[in-house]
């Protein structure tokens, strides 16, 4: 009897979840952020229904400040794969000129969270797949695979349903919706190993290359277009850099790196983590991931 590898089991679980949603929910959508986790989730959706195309659309919430390479990648992939890609932007806020330089913390809420809610409401989606993983942060660790949201898309931790075996309860009351996380049980290491095993294409920004950047508050920010406002004393430099997470370019810090192959990236990303594992895993994991986040340039 053959037994499944660790990655095979994670893949089987995610595909089971994706198929359950397609079978039981009326109007699902898969959120697509163009990042590596989204690339894995899209790949799983294609495999889950083969030879059929995924029986639901994909939706990208576009803040209008994403890296240009991300948008090119998104449009090319959607065309190549023949999937329906909806793009949702908070048009009104964009017209008002809401931007990451002048509007600080509100910017993310207005251009991401609000735009997402607008998109879900506009199309009446009752279930939205997200690429969230339990290993990302403590607050996500208790999150279910099927997470219930009320009419205002709010999460009530007390009102979540126990999930036994593979028996997911997808029944919702009128106006409620679900977020579904098929990658819940994956770790960052699993994601990278799966990308390698399945040869999944990811945005080139993950690979080191000479790019125009500035140094600001200990972060390396790429000057992706002429909307980037330089402050006095800042000067555009050309450095070999890559990005470990992808978002809005003015808010995403890169790292100087020579890693321009997948193996080198995996080595660079996971090297620190795996050496931590040799001593006490639990304490250092939490501390380590926080640290990593700061290094990755989350503001």
């Amino acid at each position, binding site marked *: *009897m*053959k*037994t*499944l590898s660790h990655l*095979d*089991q994670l*893949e*089987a679980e995610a*595909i*089971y979840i994706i*198929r*359950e949603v*397609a*079978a039981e929910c009326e109007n699902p959508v898969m959120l697509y952020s163009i990042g590596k986790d989204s690339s894995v989730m899209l790949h799983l959706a*294609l*495999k*889950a*229904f*083969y*030879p*059929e*195309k995924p029986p639901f659309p994909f939706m990208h919430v576009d803040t209008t400040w994403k890296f240009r390479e991300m948008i090119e990648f998104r449009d090319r992939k959607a065309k190549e794969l023949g999937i329906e890609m909806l793009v949702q932007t908070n048009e009104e806020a964009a017209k008002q000129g809401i931007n990451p330089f002048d509007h600080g913390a509100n910017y993310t809420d207005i251009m991401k969270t609000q735009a997402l809610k607008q998109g879900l409401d506009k199309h009446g989606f009752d279930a939205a797949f997200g690429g969230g993983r339990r290993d990302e942060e403590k607050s996500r660790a208790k999150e279910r695979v099927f997470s219930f949201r009320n009419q205002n898309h709010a999460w009530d931790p007390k009102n979540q*349903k*126990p*999930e*036994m*075996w*593979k*028996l997911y*309860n997808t*029944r*919702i*009351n009128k106006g409620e919706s679900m977020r579904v996380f098929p990658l819940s049980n994956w770790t960052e290491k699993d994601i990278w190993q799966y990308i390698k095993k399945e040869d999944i294409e990811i945005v080139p920004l993950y690979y080191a290359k000479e790019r125009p950047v500035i140094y600001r508050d200990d972060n390396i920010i790429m000057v992706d277009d002429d909307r980037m406002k330089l402050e006095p004393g800042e000067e555009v430099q050309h450095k070999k850099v890559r990005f470990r997470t992808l978002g809005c370019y003015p808010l995403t810090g890169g790292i100087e790196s020579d890693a321009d192959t997948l193996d080198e990236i995996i080595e660079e990303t996971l090297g620190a983590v795996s050496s931590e594992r040799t001593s006490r895993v639990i304490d250092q994991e939490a501390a380590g991931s926080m640290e990593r986040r700061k290094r990755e340039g989350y503001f």
Partner: protein
Amino acid sequence: MAVGASFADLAVILVDATQGVVTQTKRHARICALMGIKHLVLAVNKMDLVDYDQQKYEDIKQEFLQLTDSFNLDSVQVIPVSATEGDNITKNSDNTPWYQESALLPYLENIVVTDDVDMEHFVMPVQRVSRPNHTFRGFQGQVEAGALKVGDEVITLPSKEKATVKSLLVTDQEEDEVFVGQPVTVQLDREVDVSRGCVLTTSESISVTDMFNATLLWMDDTELVEGRNYLVKLGTQMLPGTVMNIKHKIDINTGQEVPADKVYKNELVKCDISLAEDMVFDKFDHNEGLGGFILIDRVTNMTSGSGVVEHELRRSTNVVWQDTDISREIRAQQKGQKPVTLWFTGLSGSGKSTLANEVEKRLVSTGHHTMLLDGDNVRHGLNKNLGFKEQDRIENIRRIAEVAKLMNDAGLLTMTSFISPYENDRQQAREIIGDDFVEIYVSTPLEECEKRDVKGLYEKARNGEIPNFTGVSSPYEAPENPDIEIDTSQYSLEEATDYVVKQVMKYLD
């Protein structure tokens, strides 16, 4: 904890060597066993505090083995450890020369936990049917047991057809053979009656029936009461089902049987589940994928309980529905009417019975054949063995619904007038009676009902003389979408009757 245990293959339970096996140890071991964990490790910790005393370890080991003897486990390992000193964690310790078996980590790394499910037979619940074009029809699901090859013959359940496997996909790859755990798409060589919820198998012994005995873990804040109707999700099937014959609770600490009246959150009971239709299932011990189920509350949609199938019950095969030559339609035709049940619901004193009585008079005067069921003619006869406890109230409503249905079958236009305060119970009545159920909500406000207090009941209830009085000390769940709604405080009796009769006529065409 049960949620976590349901995903695990093995559990490590910790005991304190200075304390031994305590209540919590027993509780955790029992939940692990119930959720299908076949391998337990008991880590006897703090051995350093008992001077690595072998006798202490042996006593704890014996007690634990005795406890787990009845659990149907594949392996139990008891390991003496010290977390702070590192004894027997990564390697065997010199402090416990009497323990020559494996240390904790090597044990975990080497144990084989592959489920001991029936590997002879292939089992796959169908998640969805994929039909991208006219030539491709694939059944998608995850293999729950066994293996399957191209060319094998499979049986479809519940339709019990036979077909040969034409092609197999594991995700997007063509394969000759598929195994347990894999996500697959199966194509068969002929048309079969298979949709989501059906099962493809090579086994001849899987049950297809409408009742089973189960061990149930209750997880809802609202207590479980016998006779309540829930949605039962098992594998990829979902059907209405009723919890029947709650036999006893199991004391989760001692394993002893205790009488069960009401069942509260985190309690374990033995009961029967009676399903609205046939379901495909297997004993949990035999196949987790076809033996575990959850109960979903039909109003709140919460996952209220989870359980495991112990064995099937063959009730339905013993009672064969008697087909009669004179049908419901013929009886109704003879009376020249469409039989429906007008289900009046509302608070005590809302005017249900008065209104139902007037409506009946009006219908009779226009040539209809009717029957009114109310407290007087039902409580004193058919249901006189029922009290006012919650399960009695549920049974009361169930019998009324069944009688109303029989009256409808007899061709009669039936009216029922009962408070029927629970959405769940009315939902069950709607299911029993079917399409001919018309819900009439008499929505007279509580203040008005209390002001009327025809029978003096509200006063007694306020004085605490009547416990569980609807509207005072027990809730009334107002219908969300009644077919007809009338507030009798706003109209005269004649106006109200006019309105209801006019609305009812829409259902009689």
